């Protein structure tokens, strides 16, 4: 639990002024997720990343590993700045488009869901590092949403936005849930407004009961299409390094020790076998290339 000091001394306040003048561009970061109804990340971290109970969390860990759930409070984009819909593609809303969190995007009808009813619902956000000056937006899926299909922005209906919030470790709000039946998903966006462009994203599965409008849980979840990486066809280089002499350096090429390339008018010799990548241009990675 954090205790926020009520007042700074005059001297400190002056220093604070100069501090704030500099820091807003730094990647300051808060942490948090929805704890009620719990987000997918929160559910799986509570079950335990190393030995989850539910089939959905097991599948999420199998798909993307455990680290995402140790870091359950960081499903965030440091640079969001309100550009959520530009930065996060359809099908990846729950992971914020981040590969680390791709397990959260699994389109399954068996994510543990909180039972809810239409009308007022008290919700809770658990912030391990709460930051003042934040906006919290809440959405719910439209009637007829199918949880076995990738979640798209157009599936969401706005419920409520709370602006200029100063969250505490646990912050409660009351939102008004519309009429739904069966499974639905509550999506939240925590956008910091002052001092950072960082935003956090959560997907909380809920169940209104009745089951109409949504398919019953499918015992054999429809594969895991959303996890399929945006695999680059170019990313299947041959593993057998060829020591081809000369030639211009190119990414996604296997180079053996001793291979020579030209880049930017200079010649380089490979000193450690590797498959080249964008960002690993010879002058930038002296560990891999020696200039001749």
């Amino acid at each position, binding site marked *: 639990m954090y205790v926020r000091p009520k007042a700074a001394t005059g001297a400190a306040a002056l220093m604070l002024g100069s501090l704030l003048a500099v820091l807003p561009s730094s*990647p300051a970061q808060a942490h948090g997720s929805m704890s009620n109804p719990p987000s997918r990340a929160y559910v799986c971290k509570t079950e335990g990343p190393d030995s989850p109970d539910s089939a959905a969390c097991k599948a999420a860990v199998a798909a993307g590993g455990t680290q995402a759930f140790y870091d359950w409070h960081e499903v965030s984009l440091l640079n969001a700045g309100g550009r959520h819909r530009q930065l996060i593609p359809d099908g990846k809303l729950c992971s914020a488009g981040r590969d*680390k969190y791709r397990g959260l995007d699994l389109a399954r009808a068996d994510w543990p869901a909180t039972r809810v009813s239409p009308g007022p619902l008290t919700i809770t956000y658990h912030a391990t590092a709460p930051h003042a000056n934040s906006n919290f937006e809440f959405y719910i899926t439209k009637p007829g949403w199918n949880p076995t299909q990738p979640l798209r922005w157009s599936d969401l209906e706005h419920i409520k936005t709370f602006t200029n919030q100063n969250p505490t470790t646990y912050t409660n709000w009351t939102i008004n849930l519309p009429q739904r039946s069966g499974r639905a998903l509550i999506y939240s966006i925590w956008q910091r407004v002052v001092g950072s462009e960082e935003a956090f994203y959560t997907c909380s599965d809920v169940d209104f009961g009745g089951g109409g409008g949504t398919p019953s849980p499918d015992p054999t979840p429809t594969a895991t299409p959303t996890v399929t990486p945006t695999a680059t066809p170019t990313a299947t280089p041959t593993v057998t390094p060829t020591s081809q002499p000369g030639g211009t350096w190119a990414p996604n090429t296997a180079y053996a020790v001793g291979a020579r390339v030209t880049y930017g008018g200079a010649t380089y010799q490979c000193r450690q076998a590797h*498959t080249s990548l964008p960002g690993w241009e010879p002058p930038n990675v002296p560990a891999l290339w020696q200039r001749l």
Partner: protein
Amino acid sequence: MTGRRSAVRIALALSLAAGAAGVSGCGTSGGRWAQQVMASRAADVGAARGFNAADVMFLQMMVVHNGQGVELARLARGRAVRAEIGLLAGAIAATQRDETASMAGLLREWGQPPTAPPDEHAAHGGMPETDAREIASVADAGPADFERAFLNAMIAHQDDAVQLAAAEVSGGLHPGVKALAGRIEASRRAQIERMLALLED
């Protein structure tokens, strides 16, 4: 919640409760806050020399993050992995050592602390480092599980690096550091793509 972070939070709460001044909404603690002020002032001065607080924070955090990436990459040594994974891990370790050396050198040149105060990582400054626990669990993975555990951990680690680098590209000032961040973002994204493909194979 890891023990390390809990400890950090407790220490932070104690120092704040002790009456130290904190930055509204940033949860920094007294002594470290003062250090941060000093660092920021240095960075203010630095602005005239061509760098800002975001540059400093990025370098400090990437030095630590890269170090843990090297540690993770080294776990693939001597393990039964596909040749491409072994080569990739080796190249990650080698290139990140180089990057770390040049970033640490820049911080020295600027008269800045080599790393941010520990609390800053949890409470103020950006993404987590890959947990020691995660590194240990990859190290302990049996032969049948090692490749998948290694790739998943490295994907998560480099995904965090992408976030740090992207923030520097948009918030930094120093052209050289921003260019480095651009290369870090590009190379990590490319590594992640390749590792995702390797998981599918």
